[in-house]
């Protein structure tokens, strides 16, 4: 428990201290420590500006979409029926429903990625990035379908009635079934390591960072007492997270889980109002989005720049192919693992195709992305909403803090599952991870957006590298399950209870 503190303190001491604020010191140390890994993940193909990781995601989503015969469109209606509970046996009342598994996973994906991440995409990649983001969301539905089916099929059910699932388990249990036993455990361990990184990065630092940015924004910008004092926001957030995950005060998390869906509804409602207020410009906005996608207008780096930003931010927001959601989805109660796969494909749809697109439309319609003042991240989204509804940045401030918090709680659980997979369960071992998680809240709030977002992306994508690599070998298992289930559904053997 003291080691991470010690490392951090010694690293701080080694940093150049002259005339630097606490925030600047933390940022400098953090950027230096994570630089090499970030450069590797975002390394371009030799002679081009195209990062190999983006191609990796594009190819995976395309392969899954084609291999499963556009399952995201074929099974969409059935997925909705499953979530409605049409196929749920009333005898299972009281168990985790499809709806509950879906919303728990959504609370990990719907967060600052939808609000701030999209702003980053449009400010760098131009309106055209929106097109690629939506496309990535639609194709990502197939990736999510495969990983969540595997998550349920290969989860561990313990004697005491609790369950654990996720890529760690399906990689180590399913690869031996395909005659690749030697690959299973190493991949699972590698995934778990990156998952811990992802939990500290995108699931924690990025959230804290952007929550702080919005708090500064609504309390007076550069004149705010919080300006340049991210460690204050960080400490407060870390304290609340600490109360929940270490102190065991579950009621805070439970209240958040109940409030967040309403905040999401308010956010989408406000976006819709702004879109309706500017209904005459919606056509032009879509025009700019389509044109930008193929001409690269307004994008740093042209078409390729727009595409890279679109795919990067979509993957970061909906986590399709990343493997994280498989951890949450695996808790569902069902006899057919594939049903949770169907349900999970709604996740990228809700997250990216609906919520991210709302954000992007508001930013494009209000024209704020062309602003020369260099707004990025949550400040840009806030300014775009604020230009139409002047009071909205304050509501957004509350929403952002709640989204950040619920994403942190969910990701702390993902990280903890990966951590205990590596080191085993036990109070003290879990405490080490939980305290480290809280320390990273402070680092995240203090560091600059650039360093945080690079590290967060790098970790999330590293998870996707391992997860997708394993899934390529496992997708025939899912195909068999799919054909068996669809056969039963056609034969009327899957009973409808409503």
């Amino acid at each position, binding site marked *: 428990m003291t080691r991470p503190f010690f490392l951090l303190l010694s690293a701080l001491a080694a940093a150049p201290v002259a005339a630097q604020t606490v925030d600047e010191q933390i940022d400098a140390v953090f950027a230096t420590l994570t630089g090499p890994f970030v450069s590797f993940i975002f390394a371009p193909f030799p002679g081009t500006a195209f990062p190999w990781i983006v191609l990796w995601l594009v190819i995976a989503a395309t392969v899954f979409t084609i291999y499963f015969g556009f399952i995201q469109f074929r099974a969409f209606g059935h997925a909705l029926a499953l979530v409605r509970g049409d196929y749920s046996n*009333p005898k299972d009342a009281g168990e985790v429903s499809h709806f*509950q598994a879906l919303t728990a996973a959504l609370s990990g994906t719907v967060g600052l990625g939808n609000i701030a991440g999209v702003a980053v995409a449009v400010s760098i990649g131009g309106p055209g990035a929106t097109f690629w983001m939506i496309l990535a969301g639609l194709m990502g539905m197939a990736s999510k379908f495969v990983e969540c089916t595997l998550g349920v099929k290969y989860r561990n059910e313990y004697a005491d009635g609790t369950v654990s699932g996720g890529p760690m388990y399906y990689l180590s249990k399913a690869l031996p079934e395909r005659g690749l036993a030697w690959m299973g455990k190493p991949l699972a361990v590698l995934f778990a390591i990156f998952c811990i990184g992802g939990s500290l990065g995108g699931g924690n630092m990025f959230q804290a960072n952007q929550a702080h940015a919005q708090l500064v924004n609504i309390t007076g910008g550069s004149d705010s007492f919080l300006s340049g004092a991210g460690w204050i926001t960080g400490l407060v957030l870390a304290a609340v997270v600490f109360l929940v995950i270490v102190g065991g005060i579950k009621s805070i998390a439970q209240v958040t889980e109940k409030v967040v869906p309403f905040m999401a509804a308010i956010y989408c409602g406000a976006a819709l109002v702004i879109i309706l207020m500017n209904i005459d410009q919606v056509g032009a906005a879509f025009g700019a989005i389509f044109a930008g996608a193929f001409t690269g207008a307004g994008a740093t780096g042209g078409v390729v720049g727009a595409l890279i930003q679109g795919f990067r931010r979509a993957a970061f927001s909906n986590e399709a192919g990343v493997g994280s959601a498989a951890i949450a989805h695996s808790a569902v109660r069902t006899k057919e693992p594939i049903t949770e796969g169907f349900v999970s494909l709604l996740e990228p749809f809700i997250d990216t195709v609906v919520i991210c697109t709302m954000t992007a439309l508001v930013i494009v319609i209000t024209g704020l992305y062309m602003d020369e003042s260099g707004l990025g991240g949550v400040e840009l989204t806030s300014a775009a909403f604020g230009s139409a509804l002047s009071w909205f940045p304050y509501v957004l401030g509350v929403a952002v803090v709640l989204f950040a918090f619920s994403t942190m709680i969910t990701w702390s659980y993902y990280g903890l599952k990966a951590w205990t997979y590596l080191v085993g369960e036990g109070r003290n071992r879990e405490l080490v991870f939980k305290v480290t998680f809280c320390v990273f809240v402070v680092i995240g709030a203090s560091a600059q957006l650039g360093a945080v977002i690079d590290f967060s992306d790098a970790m999330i994508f590293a998870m996707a590298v391992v997860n997708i690599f394993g899934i390529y070998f496992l997708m025939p298992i899912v195909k068999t399950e799919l054909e068996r289930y669809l056969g039963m559904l056609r034969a009327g053997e899957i009973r409808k209870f409503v």
Partner: protein
Amino acid sequence: MTLLVVGLDGSPGGEKAVQHARSLIKPEAGDSLKLVYVIEWSPFSFQTAEENAARHKRREEEIAVAQERVLAPALEALKAKGVAADGVVRHGDAAEILDEIADEAGAAGIVIARSSASGLRSRLFGSVAANLVMNARVPVTVVPVSA
């Protein structure tokens, strides 16, 4: 051979309902009671990933507690008085489940106590008693708690 369904909620009101149901039947004619304890639960509530992971275990615990603390003592007391009765614990919406069980078992009626829930919740969603009276497929008897 009359069967009555009685809703229990672990409160003194539930005991009143059982007492009243007993006065409505003739045990010597083969009449019996079915005690139902409903744990309020909705498949559309929001839960954390951690709660979900332990949900199956929690459900078993909830059922065990309801069996032990509420149903078993009530059934024991009825048995001592020579009344034939069985009991069941279910998760879900109390009004819906009571009606469903009464319908399935071919019960002649449902007896419940007026629930103590008041304020905003019952104003918005109606109380169990009100919902049951309006929607049940068999006659419903509501017993006042203070009676």
